């Protein structure tokens, strides 16, 4: 087995904030440093990419010193939270952007699928788009002609092949787009989260195709997904990234286990309370999960109402501020995502100076049994001028299902329990 991709100390820095008149002076400084043969002064003060805390520098390392050897025929799954640097790594490997430091050496042709249907033009027919998209992905016209029937067959949209793709259903669109990409003749295939679209049947087909590519044809596959079971199924090796750094490299199972266990180790408390007010314009000072009697609890029955109490301290009124909440399980699967614009009026716009109390109710029979994390953040369109609080993952609670017969063997995605109502007995 030979190495086909060699990544050496790869780093990538991004600049945060807006580009405007302020940045031009930085640019001039940077240029002057380069003319004198010095290091970029703004990169030195760069920080780790931890998004929940506001840093002092507006340069952030979204990849830091990543080294990796990938051998021919490997199927590698890359896991990590959002913002861990997975996509940045794939973007550099696909040559969409270049690294700030470090080196990548590649042997063979790379086909990257960072998005399905890049360059599809809505006005053109399916046929024309197959050619255009294929050429954008690096295929020669002859190659596409040779594979044309195969592509159409795989996509299953033969009947519409001469219809402009703007009249396609979104499903057909994605199928056609993936079909083109799946038939690329490359030694290395890079796939980023594209399976999130399309129905279950199609996802299965795509996974099957990718398996065929890696196992059957001996090509190298790099795969990013939040669907951990897909990674486990498809990949033999795994890489775990956190905050731009490579934490480990091993089998895909090891990487997944480590990724999940890190998420669980986080020191979550039952009650979130901040003794010292930091002086932000809006700050969350207290949060807890309570039951219907307003008593603090950690465990709830599936049929109970769950209430989240929040106390916010307001030092200065902020225009168009809103709150955001996510309820997710340990596998980062989101069950509820909501913000204060969902049910108008947005109550955060009427904050009074001082402490404000809020109650968020999750109706009974909403969540299935499981362990949940609660992520809270606040934002405003004028975040530059005002400081708002981003508390992050602050609460956890458990929902159990002990009162029903089916209980924990239930596979429902919601906590709904159905009643079979007898209307009338037939004689």
């Amino acid at each position, binding site marked *: 087995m030979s190495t086909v991709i*060699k990544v050496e100390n790869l780093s990538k820095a*991004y*600049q945060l904030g807006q*580009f405007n008149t302020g*940045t*031009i002076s930085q*640019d001039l400084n940077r240029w002057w440093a380069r003319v004198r043969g010095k290091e970029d002064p703004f990169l030195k003060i760069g920080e780790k990419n931890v998004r929940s805390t506001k840093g002092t520098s507006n340069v952030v390392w979204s990849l830091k010193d990543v080294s990796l050897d990938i051998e021919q025929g490997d199927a590698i799954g890359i896991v990590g939270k959002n913002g861990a640097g997975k996509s940045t790594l794939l*973007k*550099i*490997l*696909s*040559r*969409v*952007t*270049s*690294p*700030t*430091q*470090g*080196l*990548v*050496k*590649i*042997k*063979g*042709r*790379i086909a*990257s699928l*960072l*998005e399905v249907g*890049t*360059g599809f*033009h809505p*006005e*053109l027919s399916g046929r*024309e788009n197959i*050619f*255009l998209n294929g*050429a*954008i*992905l*690096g295929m*020669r*016209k002859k190659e596409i002609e040779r594979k044309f029937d195969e592509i159409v067959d795989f996509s299953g949209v033969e009947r519409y092949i001469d219809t*402009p793709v703007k009249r396609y259903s979104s499903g057909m669109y994605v199928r056609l787009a993936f079909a083109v990409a799946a038939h690329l003749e490359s030694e290395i295939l890079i796939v980023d989260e594209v399976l999130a679209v399309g129905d279950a049947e199609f996802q299965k087909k795509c996974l099957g195709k990718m398996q065929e590519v890696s196992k059957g044809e001996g090509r190298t596959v790099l795969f990013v997904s939040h669907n951990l079971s897909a990674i486990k199924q498809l990949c033999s090796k795994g890489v775990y990234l956190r905050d731009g750094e490579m934490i480990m490299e091993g089998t895909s199972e090891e990487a997944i286990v480590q990724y999940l266990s890190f998420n669980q180790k986080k020191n979550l408390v039952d009650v979130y309370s901040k003794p010292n007010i930091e002086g932000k314009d809006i700050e969350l000072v207290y949060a807890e999960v309570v039951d219907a009697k307003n008593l603090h609890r950690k465990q709830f029955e599936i049929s109970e109402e769950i209430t989240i109490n929040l106390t916010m301290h307001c030092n200065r009124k902020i225009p168009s501020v809103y709150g955001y909440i996510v309820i997710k399980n340990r596998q980062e699967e989101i069950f509820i995502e909501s913000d204060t614009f969902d049910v108008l009026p947005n109550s955060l716009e009427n904050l009074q100076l001082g402490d404000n109390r809020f109650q968020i109710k999750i109706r009974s029979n909403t969540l299935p049994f499981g362990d949940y994390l609660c992520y809270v953040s606040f934002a405003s369109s004028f975040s530059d001028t005002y400081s708002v609080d981003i508390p992050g993952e602050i609460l956890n609670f458990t929902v159990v299902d002990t009162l029903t017969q089916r209980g924990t063997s239930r596979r429902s995605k919601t906590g709904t329990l159905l009643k079979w109502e007898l209307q009338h007995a037939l004689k």
Partner: protein
Amino acid sequence: MKSNNDNQWDVIIQPHDRLFHINFAEVYRYRDLLGLIVKRDFVASYKQTILGPLWFFIQPLFTMVMYTFIFGKLAGFSTDGLPKPLFYLVGITTWNYFSDTLNKTSNVFKDNASIFGKVYFPRLIMPLSIVVSNLVKFGVQLLLLCFVMLFYVYTGVSFSPSYYLAFFPVVIVLMAAQGLGFGMIVSAMTTKYRDLAFLVTFGVQLAMYATPVIYPFSSVPPQYQGIISLNPMTAIVELSRLGLLGQGYFSMQSFGYCVLFTVSILLIGVIIFNKVEKNFVDTI
């Protein structure tokens, strides 16, 4: 293993390439893409229109009529003794090619940001496709010019194409290169700061008046002739007129200046473009 030097690798990705490192072989390999993009531009822009490609004719035709009326009749500008519509049409056709190429190339990063952000292919393909697309359009408009010329031949108005017509292909290459070169410089500079894009849009409009499009070079007062001939498009418009209609200004000096200018602009454009294309995705 380290001794297995870098030759075994097909691609090496690193922060900075050499200044003039352009992989022309790669651009050539993607020539099918160029053709398909040109085709897409044509097919897509006239889908769901009634007149379709006729719009290629309508725009220069109406401009010609307007110019003939305003600059020819009302203002009474000289046209070197040539039929007014014909005089303006040559100017309009060549100038439009230049300005369209320049404007479109200036926005190449902005317009294609979504594709560039997701797939790698030699970025140079996009500006080149603009040049070719416009070239096709230019060819069609040249056809219109031929019709108008034939019409004048038929009505017996005198003008005679000169042997300078042999230069015409060179002229086309020169103006394509100029539009491309300027456009690439602007495009690279606007990825981070958009100011220049605004400047260019109206700057190009104004620059037309500093080019002998609506007046012949011969009617420019001698004290201004120096300035006007600094404009690299001057030689191109005048030479086209001299070739096609037999009236125009030509000197080896101005032609040589034009060639030199074009080559350097193109070179600078390619270098800057090449430097910016690697990282612009992060800033656009």
